[in-house]
């Protein structure tokens, strides 16, 4: 048998740059209230959400991704030709073949980078980041772009008073590259398929095509069950990610949970007993829940406003439909 050459990667990986794109149209709660019997006060008290962004026809999944990625590439200080992999996490790109990642890789000017889409709901960013880190350490790419992008407004039932106000659109991207020091901790991730009914698309596309249902598919969820799982089970996962990285809450500078709902964020902070000095991302207030895009968008905003700074230690955790989750500790770019 011939002896195969081993692949040779970087010792470690780190996030080198981050970028975000928020659609130009800002949608306040008043617009949501045109179709549901609720109030601005009720929406704010249940979710913390004041406004969200909805994409227009030109702000496609690919277009938003390219904008966010361009900023992330510039922030990383590399050129697009150096990117060897493009990973796109989305559940709201409605042309499933080919993968939208290939169009994005091409339009950004990468040199035929490996490109593929993944589906991991609101944990998509952490899933993508973990794959990127593996590719870099294994040696199949030097730089990998991880994009979380959603147009959840296309999957929102505007007449459902429990979810109509929750979702938003946008794209967040990071460039992951080689590092001499560990800067992305071990990922604690997993799935609980026995809870697949907790958050889901109402019906398959095929049911809509054959006319079995009148209403376009939308995302629906069991609010109380999601809240319990997100707060109490995910707090355990977050703690495991801290343990795996070998740090304690005291060592943290920043906490960036998936921006699902501010009440979940508040309860997680309480359950995790995070110290006062930890900056907590609350981008959900003005961005809504953008699923896979929420963590990189929140990261970008914290860095842009100066609430967080390059080199800070951040705990990131995504959780959502599947149910799936992924948590890790990262050094901010």
């Amino acid at each position, binding site marked *: 048998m011939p002896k195969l050459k081993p692949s040779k990667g970087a010792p470690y990986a780190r996030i080198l740059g981050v970028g975000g794109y928020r659609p130009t149209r800002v949608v306040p709660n008043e617009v949501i209230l045109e179709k549901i019997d609720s109030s601005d006060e009720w929406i704010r*008290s*249940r979710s913390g959400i004041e406004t969200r962004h909805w994409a227009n026809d030109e702000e496609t999944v690919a277009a938003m991704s390219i904008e966010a990625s361009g900023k992330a590439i510039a922030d990383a200080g590399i050129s697009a030709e150096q990117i060897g992999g493009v990973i796109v996490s989305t559940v709201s790109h409605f042309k499933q073949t080919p993968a939208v990642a290939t169009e994005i890789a091409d339009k950004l000017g990468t040199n035929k980078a490996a490109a593929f889409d993944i589906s991991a709901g609101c944990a998509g960013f952490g899933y993508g980041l973990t794959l990127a880190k593996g590719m870099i350490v294994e040696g199949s790419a030097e730089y990998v772009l991880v994009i979380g992008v959603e147009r959840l407004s296309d999957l929102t039932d505007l007449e459902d008073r429990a979810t109509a106000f929750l979702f938003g659109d946008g794209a967040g991207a990071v460039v992951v590259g080689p590092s001499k020091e560990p800067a992305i901790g071990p990922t604690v991730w997993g799935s609980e398929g026995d809870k697949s009914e907790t958050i889901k698309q109402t019906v398959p596309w095929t049911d809509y095509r054959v006319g079995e249902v009148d209403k376009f598919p939308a995302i629906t969820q*069991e*609010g*109380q*069950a999601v*809240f*319990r799982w997100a*707060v*109490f089970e995910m707090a355990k996962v977050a703690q495991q990610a801290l343990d795996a990285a070998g740090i304690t809450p005291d060592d943290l500078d920043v906490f960036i949970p998936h921006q699902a709902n501010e*009440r979940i964020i508040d*309860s997680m902070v309480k359950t995790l007993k995070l110290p006062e000095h930890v900056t907590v991302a609350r981008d959900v207030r003005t961005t809504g829940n953008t699923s896979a895009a929420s963590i990189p968008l929140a990261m970008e905003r914290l860095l842009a406003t100066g609430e967080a700074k390059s080199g800070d230690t951040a705990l990131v955790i995504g959780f959502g439909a599947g149910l799936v989750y992924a948590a890790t500790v990262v050094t901010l770019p």
Partner: protein
Amino acid sequence: MAATQEEIVAGLADIVNEIAGIPVEDVQLDKSFTDDLDVDSLSMVEVVVAAEERFDVKIPDEDVKNLKTVGDATDYILKHQG
């Protein structure tokens, strides 16, 4: 040892006070969590999880919606406590 009805109401009063800031003396058997005690559906989940821990009882998601009043919760815990 299993908690008595009185102990459960007192425990729930502590929990509701901690989570929603309601004075403990307002937490009575006939009070509705949402209508009288300002405990909304999400805070109710926090009350339930705290009660599970305190009284060694499991309250599945599908049963939470039936616990409208402090009395409902007290009866449930009396019946199911470990």
